[in-house]
């Protein structure tokens, strides 16, 4: 089976994530879409590692996972604190800063 299908799958996942960030309103869901984009990049890295016959891409995927985990910690902390202050995690409600 040709590895190209994995690249297409990754591109589709990345697009779903990017569109999700733009259209969804809940901060947690927006954040999940970002994670989807990161994992699409991971799938691309691993597939290209297979195509190129080198281990680099697979090792990079591990680095990305660690970074994504750190990002979850920071992100959930920020979303939690804003939810406790406002009783809402909607990105539309956070509208004090404009113009």
């Amino acid at each position, binding site marked *: 089976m040709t590895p190209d299908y994995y690249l297409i799958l990754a591109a589709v996942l990345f697009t779903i994530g990017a569109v999700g960030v733009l259209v969804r309103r809940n901060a947690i869901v927006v954040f999940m879409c970002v994670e989807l984009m990161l994992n699409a*990049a991971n799938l*691309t890295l691993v597939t290209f590692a297979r195509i190129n016959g080198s281990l680099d*891409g697979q090792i990079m995927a591990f680095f990305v996972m660690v970074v994504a985990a*750190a990002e979850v910690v920071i*992100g959930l902390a*920020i979303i939690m604190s804003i939810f406790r*202050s406002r009783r809402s995690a909607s*990105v539309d409600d956070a509208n004090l800063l404009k*113009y």
Partner: protein
Amino acid sequence: MNDIQLPAIDYAALLPMLIVFGAACVGILVEAFAPRGWRFVIQVSLTIGGLVAGLVAIIVNRDLEITTIGGAVTVDGPGLFLQGAIIILGIVSLGLIAERRLERGGPFVAEAAHAANSDGDKRQEREPGATEVFPLTLFAIAGMMLFCVSGDLLTMFVALEVFSLPLYLLCGLARRRRLISQEAALKYFLLGAFASAFFLYGVALLYGYAGTVSLTGIREGVLQSEQSGILLAAGLALLAIGLLFKAAAVPFHVWTPDVYQGAPTPVTALMAACTKAAAFGGLLRVFNVAFETTAWDWQPVLATVAILTMVVGSILAVAQTDIKRLLAYSSVANAGYLLVGVVSLNGAVGSSLFYLIAYGFSVLGAFAMVTLVRDSEGEATHLSRWAGLGKGSPLFSALFTFLMLGFAGIPLTSGFTSKFALFSSAWDSDQSVLVIVGVLSSVVLAFPYLKVVVLLWLNPPGEETPTVSVPSMLTRAVIFAGVAVTFVLGVAPSFLLDIVADAGPFLAK
């Protein structure tokens, strides 16, 4: 498939970053073990000590040119200069972060875990601010240092996150107006994570194209790869989105005014000076090392982005009514001028580095002065409140006027010499259109600055003119450094121009 080998590590080349990362880790331990009353003193001395030690290590390394840990880190002249610039600007902005006289307990909240406006939040109003901000600042600065010397795109991605994550948190830790501060943190975080996902997907595509993510490997891969050119173009575009977001270039600038306004002003100052230096350090390295040979393909696109950034930044700055938002749009416009330096490639590396230092000091001084104008609610940042401050506080207004004239690019200030150096080297690199747009937009941009000056001196004071608080030595030192460097680089820029000329080009082997 090969086995994984441990690459050779040159610890001397990594020493500046190891020192700062080490000091940050020790700072975390201090938070855990030192008694509460002592933490502030210990953290401030540890942070300043760590940064100064890092700076000394950079000065010792100054002639080093080496690629180490399997190509992950490339230490070269511009890289070391940027590291030094980030550390020096970081030390200066630390004066604002550690300031405790302007506001009881400092500019940061005591316990961020309390919900804003809850009972616990009201109880903690008089408690001293959290000292976690110091290790967070150190992590951010160390990440920026790594970002400027990363030799491959994976290291660059990790460094990008290492310096972004602490900044997201710092944005949300303001003592006053906590809802706005948390909103700024949320916006910065969501958009920043979105942009770094683009960056990472770009890295993945470039890996597929060149078979490696090292910058020099991509440079060679461009010449001999058998993969489709679409991978290269798409990878480069996505990578550039991630970098241009951090640099606050139009159309990826929308976060800038909100985050600059909502974040605690010392953090805004840190972002405006250090993050800008790091982001452009990364941009300069990526485009000069990895993509110089494909310059014909991307230069028109990046030039368009530069023109958009200069024009949109300077025009929107005119319409602002809040001093922090005004400085934010001015920082967008300045990102445009620096992009002119990026488009001009090797010819303008030195003058871009000079510009980063000059702009960094001026903007630190300006934000330091913004922290002084206060009423009972905290900082009064709305421009209408600044009317007539010149009557009651002539020294403050005179210094702020000088900084504004510096931003506007009046001769005898660093704003003039840095713009002159940047535009003349861009002109020599045949970017005449960009230079003309740049000069025109800086004329437009002078208007909002002069508007502030007129407001300070000529407008009658309002009914509730805020007072200009008397700061401690720390903020005074920051203001002095900002004003002094703005003046010295305007009058005698040659010594710094010599240093950036000695730094030479990026190491592309």
